[in-house]
């Protein structure tokens, strides 16, 4: 069986002519089906760019990306996307927002209403289905966005710092919810964050990115068994793992800095 996501020597250069900006260079990695992989690195290091390339939302400059064995040339219906801001439509109810992809794909709503209700219930939003986004809290809005990404039952979830705009307490809450969801629906997930703890808690593997242009610095397997819960964050080996990753990032930063000067 081929990998769910397969990136080979991927590079992205913005602009053309003399004024160009190389965002990422020579990225090679693959993600197995049902694996949760995180792209970890400091802000503005090209993680999101890479995610957009996988989602077919930006054009690849060099290299190839394959989703389910087929090369990515544009957006594909088997990916579900979650962004930093929930991007809900304020005039639609939470329920209608969840069904937004179905409406856009011109699929029959009736086939998905049950799933939409089930997802909302799984996210603790049973009573919020009829409410509109302005009536919901930040955390609830992001949960609606997660339901929306899952409604069409995509095989791959692409998440671009989905929790970084939330307060710390809500963020922890949603991390736990994400663990539960992963147990229940088990998708291939590519997750972007700059939080080391979040990366370790959620992932099977962490890809550390850094430098200018960004490259993959390290590929770290997170050995903790699933199902996981928040108690894991108290464990000594969890914190040791976080420390290890932090060190990787710091070294990469120093190297990147030296590069910039040289």
């Amino acid at each position, binding site marked *: 069986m081929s990998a769910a996501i397969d990136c080979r020597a991927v590079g992205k250069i913005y602009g053309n002519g003399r004024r160009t900006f190389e965002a990422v260079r020579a990225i090679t990695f693959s993600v197995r089906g049902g694996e949760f992989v995180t792209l970890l690195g400091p802000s503005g290091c090209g993680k999101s760019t890479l995610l*957009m390339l996988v*989602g*077919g*939302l930006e054009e690849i400059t060099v290299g190839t990306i394959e989703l389910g064995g087929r090369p990515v040339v544009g*957006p594909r*219906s088997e*990916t*579900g*996307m979650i*962004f*930093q*801001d929930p*991007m809900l*439509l*304020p*005039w639609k109810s939470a329920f209608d927002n969840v069904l*937004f*992809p179905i*409406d*856009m*794909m011109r699929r029959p709503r009736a086939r998905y209403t049950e799933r939409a209700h089930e997802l909302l219930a799984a996210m603790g939003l049973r009573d919020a289905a009829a*409410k*509109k986004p*302005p*009536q919901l809290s930040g955390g609830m809005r992001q949960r609606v966005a997660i339901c929306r990404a899952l409604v*069409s039952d995509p095989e791959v979830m692409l998440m*671009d710092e989905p929790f970084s705009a939330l307060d710390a307490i809500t963020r922890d809450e949603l991390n736990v919810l994400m663990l539960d969801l992963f147990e229940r629906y088990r998708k291939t997930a590519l997750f972007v964050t700059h939080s080391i703890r979040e990366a370790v808690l959620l992932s099977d593997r962490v890809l550390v990115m850094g430098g200018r242009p960004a490259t993959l610095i390290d590929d770290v397997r997170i050995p903790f068994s699933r199902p996981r819960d928040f108690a894991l964050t108290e464990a000594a080996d969890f914190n040791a793992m976080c420390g290890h990753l932090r060190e990787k990032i710091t070294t990469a930063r120093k190297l990147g800095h030296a590069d910039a000067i040289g």
Partner: protein
Amino acid sequence: MPTPLADAAINVGSVAAVSENAASSQPQPRRRRRWRAAGHLATIALPIALSLFVLVAWEFIVRVAKVPPAILPPPSAIFEQLTTHYALLLKHAVPTTLETLLAFGFSIPLGVFIAAVMTWSPVINKAVYPNVIFFQLIPKIALAPLFIVWLGIGLPSRTTFSIFISFFPILVATAAGLQSVPRDMLRLCRSVGASDWQVLVHVRFPTALPFLFSGMKVAVTLSIIGIVVGEFIASQRGLGYLILFASSRLQTDLSLACIAVLCAVGLGLYGLVVLSERVAMRWYGDR
């Protein structure tokens, strides 16, 4: 990118929305609520009190200083004109109002359509936008006589001129609204396979709605100005015509009575826009 005019319109709209939000969303303890009620009363009573004071002062000064009525009649004389000539005023108010509504009614789809085309095609946007800004700088009233030359002295020239000056704020505000959709929202739409048309109808238009209403508030007053200017130049009816007619006979009190009626018409049309905005915003955010 948006012109100062549209900027101002949009700012006014959003400030109003914010204050409305703040007023309705927080339940207040009783004492605070009583203060708030007093505050509401003041926001209505104070402007009325001020305008009454100005009217009384006006009446008093004109009488004491014995200003000739042809120069400045007292408010009581204007009021008398309103009551004695109400049939005449009404007769002329009807065409002015209807033509304003006609012009306003055309300027909305025209402005929205051009804004949609500009949003749809970046090339057209680049070609059109600087010209739109340039057009804004033309003192458009100066072009009014040309419309008579081009379209004659009838209703078509008046309404066309009125549309010409009133569709700009709608165009600029709607274009700003259509293009205010965040990049990630557009990415989301693309990732679920939405076509440009679907994005326009399901995402961009509803997002632009509050902007459109800000533009409409500016446009509706401009439509009236357009029609009245048209009536000044060439017309046998309408309040603009009556103002000119009365002024030429030094019936200043009748002129001012016309202006009072014009104010009422303008207020009514503006109120209509505000009312439809309320209805639309209730659907929009349920706030």
